[in-house]
């Protein structure tokens, strides 16, 4: 009898160990494939930016986009992950950052740590997304060297510092203000949009964008279908992005990054409803397919901060408002501020990111936080939104001004005129059918 009990106990222990390991593997699998899905965001941004460029700049825009993605990866390993772990309290690094140092034992294959690698990968993709948001605004006239420096600053320093403050279980925006931003409307999109705004002021417009009297010309994308497909790929990737915002808990209720319980079903409901609202809202006001698809993105971004708690028709409504207002805000940026935002990034990401944070303050105040953090409130959301704006805009303006002074920001006029592909790319995008310098179709010989 005693032997049987001992065997039974051994079997139970083995089963428990097996179940625990299974849970660990489940977490790895979940975040790994969410990360893989997020790569589609970059496939989308690649198509979006190349399509939005004129034919004479298409490869230069593509190279710029891919290089931003590539440079974010090592730099986020060198210091990005450490910033997230070390700075939840503000500007003074805490001891908790040590596991994020690039020589830490957690920062490599480790049989006692199945989590760090997949979380680092997911955050790296968030970082690359942030840099790509900024990338589209500055196409066709920014120098690659200056752009890479700015992309690294935004992707591997600024957004992740914002995440340490407002998208971390002990970040000061949460513990002091109860800030709530489930899907990074403020932490990714507002920071990136504000950064783009700061850079655009120093970068200046593309040649031909503005007339002598200050009126703006439309510079048409060379391939609108590529733009639309790119935007749809970004939407697909956003499902991975938002799934990765959920904290999978072994054997328990899943939570958001703040520890509040939630379901993955919430992401299913509200991402789709926000997307639908954004597309319809933009279509209703513009009839323009470019803005319609941007509206889908705007709808998700506007709903993003509260995706974990929205009643789905409310996600549709806030998404609709986001989609319906992006063209208006972009007109203000282009015609009133006279800033040449080539893809509407300030509007779609900056404005909708701000709106997304604030609608949580309007409609989701009162939700309890865990621990000692105050509940979600309008004031907490306002503080968070202002911090996100400042964290993007101020460094974006200052560093781009410095790059302008040392002539690393804007390509020379003669290169803009003949096209960046001809000036600096050893390959033709459309060698047989398109006259790159003119950007027009030629009869095939």
């Amino acid at each position, binding site marked *: 009898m005693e032997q049987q009990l001992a065997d039974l106990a051994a079997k139970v222990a083995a089963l428990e160990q097996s179940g625990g390991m299974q849970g660990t593997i489940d977490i790895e699998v979940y975040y790994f494939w969410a990360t893989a899905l997020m790569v589609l965001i970059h496939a989308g941004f690649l198509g979006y930016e190349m399509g939005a460029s004129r034919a004479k700049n298409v490869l230069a825009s593509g190279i710029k986009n891919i*290089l931003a993605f590539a*440079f974010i990866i*090592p*730099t986020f390993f*060198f210091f990005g992950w450490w910033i997230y772990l070390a700075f939840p309290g503000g500007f003074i690094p805490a001891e908790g950052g040590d596991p994020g140092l*690039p*020589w830490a*034992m957690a920062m*490599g*294959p*480790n*049989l*006692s*740590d199945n989590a760090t690698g997949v979380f680092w990968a997911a955050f790296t993709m968030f970082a690359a997304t942030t840099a790509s948001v900024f990338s589209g605004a500055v196409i066709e006239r920014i*120098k*690659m*060297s200056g752009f*890479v*420096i700015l992309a690294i600053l935004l992707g591997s320093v600024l957004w992740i510092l914002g995440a340490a403050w407002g998208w971390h279980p002990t970040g000061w925006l949460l513990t002091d203000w109860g800030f709530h931003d489930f899907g990074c409307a403020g932490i990714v999109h507002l920071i990136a949009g504000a950064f783009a705004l700061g850079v655009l002021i120093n970068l200046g417009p593309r040649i031909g964008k503005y007339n002598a009297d200050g009126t703006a010309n439309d510079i048409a994308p060379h391939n609108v279908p590529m733009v639309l497909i790119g935007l749809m790929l970004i939407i697909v990737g956003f499902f991975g992005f938002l799934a990765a915002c959920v904290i999978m808990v072994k054997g328990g209720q899943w939570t958001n990054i703040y520890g509040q319980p939630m379901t993955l079903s919430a992401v299913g409901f509200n991402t789709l409803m926000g997307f639908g609202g954004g597309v319809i809202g933009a279509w209703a006001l513009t009839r323009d397919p470019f803005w319609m698809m941007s509206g889908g993105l705007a709808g998700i971004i506007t709903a993003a901060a509260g995706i974990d708690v929205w009643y789905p028709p409310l996600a549709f409504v806030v998404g609709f408002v986001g989609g319906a207002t992006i063209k208006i805000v972009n007109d203000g940026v282009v015609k009133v501020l006279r800033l040449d935002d080539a893809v509407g990034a300030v509007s779609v990401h900056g404005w909708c990111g701000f709106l997304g944070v604030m609608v949580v303050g309007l409609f989701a105040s009162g939700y309890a936080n865990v621990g000692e953090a105050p509940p979600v409130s309008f004031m907490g959301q306002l503080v968070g939104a202002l911090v996100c704006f400042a964290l993007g805009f101020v460094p974006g303006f200052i560093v781009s001004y410095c790059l302008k002074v040392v002539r*690393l920001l804007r*390509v*020379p006029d*003669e*290169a803009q005129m*003949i096209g960046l592909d001809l*000036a*600096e790319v050893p390959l033709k995008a459309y060698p047989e059918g398109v006259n790159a310098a003119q950007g027009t179709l030629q009869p095939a010989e």
Partner: protein
Amino acid sequence: MGSPITKWEGAAEYFTYADRPIVLYIILGIAIAFTVLSIVKVGRHEKESYEKLK
């Protein structure tokens, strides 16, 4: 030569040179140098490309 383990039982960090921090620092330094020099190279390529246009 790069393996930090001689058997899998009880192994934790098993990436190459995990048991030799000085080698990790050297490799990290090389990786950082490649990254920085690549940015410098981007700037030089631009400068040369634009000078040809003048």
